């Protein structure tokens, strides 16, 4: 019994961090509508700053080039180090707010999410450059003298940390209820326009809240390091349970968020204990996975209405393309692809192949987020599932590769449908958080299984075969082989072609109708729920397909490829590239993917190698600010998939003259031009 109490108290440590991060996220969301996934990365950064001050007396700047540290003497005591860190946090909060989020105050929620992913990547990358990837442990901050109450030894620091969290929650509650600042923030969250009309400056309120939230993140970083060792990436994932707490608190209640955060920490800790008692329990991932399952189930069942924010611009959908002449485009893309494959060699050819695979993964988001306006932060989980299923398919029996791919892609479909269930109840940013929880649960519960994923080493994948022909990426000394690239092109362009044609089919119209207006969709007899499940299934299929291709491309699969973070990055780069059109998927794959053609090219010519992720983070945030609707839509200008590209295509593959058919749309889905004048290809 006493050990259960001990584990309960141990859980207060992690729980407090979830609460603190969660409280900061509530502040940010209420004041700016940003669900800031970077909160964990900021905590990590604050922790490093504090640690370096204490150990070396150097102040770390969030930069990697020379000089990134300012020496303030030798190691410091706790109090001055803490004070400096908090001042630092204030400045950091202001800088990040005015550089990144201020320009995005009116942007679509997902654009803000992308920017926050960019900020996360930036801080992670700078930390890796400056501090390396090995975990460091820190000297204690809080008195860790143990209490002994009726025979139970209670670690003192956990009591302290929980006490601080509760005190902060009380302070926030009181501030928000009784001060003018709190009232103004609440007014702004309730009705931004109204608040502006009575003379409240949204920017000033947001900036203050942002600083406050950054301070909370910094503080949580400082407090957790002595308990949990510090490294550049693992803190980032604390946002997932923290977001769980925030969801339970409905993005609104400080009290519930705090309690939920502490509760999640305790549940995790008790699960560790239970694992030692009941040996039949899965030994891996339980404590990480179960809280996410709890979030998932609660949200799917309970939340009909989650605290939405009354912003001036409600959830705007990204602009949507209209594919013209998909057949001709596909043929041309294939021809260009083959030329590029042959022209490139070595690492650049391999990078081009990686780009093609990313295009396939991106297509899953084009149908889901672009066509139907749903969000999923679990795309890489689907991909991973498909990849591992492929690795189990017994590659020696000479199964044609397309059959193996089909099976692995189909295996992800039930997962997709499962993920679609919460989408029937929650929307937008809430849905994003729920799917992120699902991805984290997959990480912890499914991908941790050594049997399924081969543990740390991963699993080998045999070469794709077609009737005895080896299509593998490597054979003997030749790598990467053109024939593999051609196989990739055929599969991915085929998928893209189908996705394009789907858009202008009866089903596509129905999907877009649901995206545009669910109320009106049901008024024309469309049943919304199955439509959503259908698109989640399709999206999972495309992701599973991409996962299978990725497995073939890397010749092995390991679970580290398919983390929740990878899903977050994928959504961010596809969204920024333009999630409403297939061109966006292509841009995402070729230009943005970190292992893709363009980035590898930069790496090779400019030798930006080690700074690549930093640059990617900045680029992501910048692009989000510059092109809230996606790069591809900007490229396309007012209409269509880039008028110049389309014109070039039409010159290379002339449009066959079709007989004029009144009332009937053309076979490509494009309406017959002779009747209606120029085909309207896209909305401004």
């Amino acid at each position, binding site marked *: 019994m006493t050990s259960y109490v001990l584990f309960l108290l141990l859980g207060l440590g992690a729980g407090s961090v979830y609460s603190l991060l969660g409280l900061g996220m509530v502040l940010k969301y209420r004041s700016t509508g940003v669900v800031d996934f970077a909160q964990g990365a900021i905590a990590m950064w604050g922790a490093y700053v504090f640690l370096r001050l204490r150990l070396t007396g150097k102040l770390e700047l969030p930069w990697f080039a020379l000089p990134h540290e300012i020496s303030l003497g030798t190691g410091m005591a706790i109090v001055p180090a803490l004070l400096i860190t908090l001042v630092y946090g204030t400045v950091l909060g202001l800088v990040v707010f005015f550089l990144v989020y201020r320009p995005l105050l009116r942007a679509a929620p997902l654009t803000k999410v992308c920017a926050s992913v960019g900020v996360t990547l930036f801080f992670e990358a700078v930390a890796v450059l400056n501090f390396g990837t090995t975990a460091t442990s820190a000297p204690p901050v809080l008195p860790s003298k143990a209490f002994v109450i009726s025979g139970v030894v209670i670690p003192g620091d956990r009591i302290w940390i929980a006490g601080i969290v509760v005190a902060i929650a009380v302070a926030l509650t009181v501030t928000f209820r009784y001060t003018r600042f709190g009232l103004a923030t609440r007014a702004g969250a309730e009705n931004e326009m109204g608040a502006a009309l009575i003379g409240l400056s949204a920017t000033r309120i947001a900036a203050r809240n942002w600083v406050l939230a950054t301070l909370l993140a910094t503080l949580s970083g400082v407090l957790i390091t002595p308990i949990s060792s510090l490294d550049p990436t693992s803190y980032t994932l604390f946002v997932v349970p923290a977001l769980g707490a925030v969801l339970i608190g409905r993005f609104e209640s400080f009290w519930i968020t705090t309690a939920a955060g502490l509760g999640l920490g305790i549940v995790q800790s008790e699960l560790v204990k239970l694992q030692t008692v009941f040996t039949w329990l899965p030994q891996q991932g339980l404590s990480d996975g179960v809280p996410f399952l709890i979030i998932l189930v609660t949200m799917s069942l309970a939340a009909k209405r989650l605290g939405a924010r009354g912003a001036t611009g409600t959830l705007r*959908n990204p602009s*949507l393309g209209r594919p013209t002449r998909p057949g001709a485009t596909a043929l041309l893309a294939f021809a260009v692809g083959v030329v590029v494959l042959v022209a490139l060699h070595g690492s650049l050819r391999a990078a081009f192949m990686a780009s093609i695979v990313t295009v396939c993964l991106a297509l899953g988001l084009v149908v889901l987020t672009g066509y139907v306006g749903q969000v999923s932060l679990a795309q890489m989980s689907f991909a991973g599932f498909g990849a591992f299923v492929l690795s189990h398919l017994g590659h020696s029996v000479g199964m044609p590769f397309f059959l193996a791919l089909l099976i692995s892609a189909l295996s992800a479909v039930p997962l997709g449908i499962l993920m679609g269930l919460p989408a029937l109840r929650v929307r937008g940013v809430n849905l994003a958080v729920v799917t992120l929880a699902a991805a984290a649960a997959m990480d912890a519960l499914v991908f941790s299984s050594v049997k399924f994923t081969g543990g740390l080493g991963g699993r080998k994948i045999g070469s794709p075969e077609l009737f005895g022909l080896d299509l593998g990426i490597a054979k003997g000394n030749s790598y990467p082989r053109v024939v593999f690239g051609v196989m990739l092109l055929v599969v991915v362009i085929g998928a893209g072609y189908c996705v394009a044609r789907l858009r202008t089919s*009866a*089903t596509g119209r*129905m999907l*877009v109708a649901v995206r545009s207006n669910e*109320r*009106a969709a049901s008024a*024309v007899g469309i049943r919304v729920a199955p439509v959503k499940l259908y698109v989640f299934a399709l999206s999972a299929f495309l992701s599973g397909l991409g996962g299978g291709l990725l497995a073939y491309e890397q010749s092995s699969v390991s679970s580290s490829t398919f983390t929740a973070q990878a899903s977050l990055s994928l959504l961010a780069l596809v969204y920024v590239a333009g999630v409403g059109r297939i061109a966006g998927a292509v841009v995402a794959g070729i230009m943005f993917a970190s292992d893709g053609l363009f980035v590898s090219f930069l790496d090779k010519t400019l030798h930006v190698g080690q700074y690549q992720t930093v640059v990617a983070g900045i680029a992501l945030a910048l692009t989000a600010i510059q092109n809230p609707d996606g790069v591809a839509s900007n490229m396309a200008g007012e209409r269509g998939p880039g008028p110049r590209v389309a014109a070039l295509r039409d010159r290379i593959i002339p449009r066959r003259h079709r007989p004029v058919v009144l009332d009937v749309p053309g076979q490509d889905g494009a309406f017959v031009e002779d009747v209606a004048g120029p085909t309207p290809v896209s*909305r401004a």
Partner: protein
Amino acid sequence: MGQLLEVTDLRVTYGGVVAVDDVSLHVAEGEVVGLIGPNGAGKSSFIDGLTGYLPRRGGHVEFEGRSLDGLATYAVARRGLVRTFQSVELFDDLTVEENLLVAAERPRLVTMLRDLVLPSRPEGVDDVAWARMLCELDDVAHRYPQELSHGQRKLVGVARALAQRPRLVLMDEPAAGLDTEESLAFGRRLRSLPGHGVSVLLVDHDMGLVLSVCDRIVVIDFGKVIASGTPEEIRADEAVIAAYLGGVDARH
């Protein structure tokens, strides 16, 4: 002529406020029935309650002799009882033509799967052409809703309802915001609908339109029916005059 729609004691409430207070109404096959009332009389709430967009707190709805109680909104539409919205609510990402097509075609799962590899040609093209012709939307078929005038958007809303080949259309203020000429033209189109097998329940407060096109009119105020009858009877009805003209007089 059998009753197409039979509404008995429909009741809709918002919290403690009764918006529709036991309203009964029927529409026969081939009829154009008007439902009018001053602002806030409960007209839109009546339609919402009837079609399942608001929960009914009482009453019973029968359509073609079958109960509609407990049916979801999409199922009501599939039965052939189709509505339009006061705020139009078009699909902004689809062209006018597609707005109509999506209403006319109801892809089944088989179609949805086939569309992944071998997209079907649009079904329901005839229904769309018919609805488009009826609302004279041929010129704007390939435009997006946001490029259209308010009046045209309203017409697209009506055409979208008609493209479903309904038995009965509930029109929620289709003429609001139209100018006199547009309104007259709209009235003529509406009058022709019964000839195509479509009955109409017209909700509007444009008295001119309602009196000129409807066979029968039901007047509600404060959620209750205060009069019903032919346009001539309604014109002469004292309760109606009090509700409308009385209100006007009081304001002057």
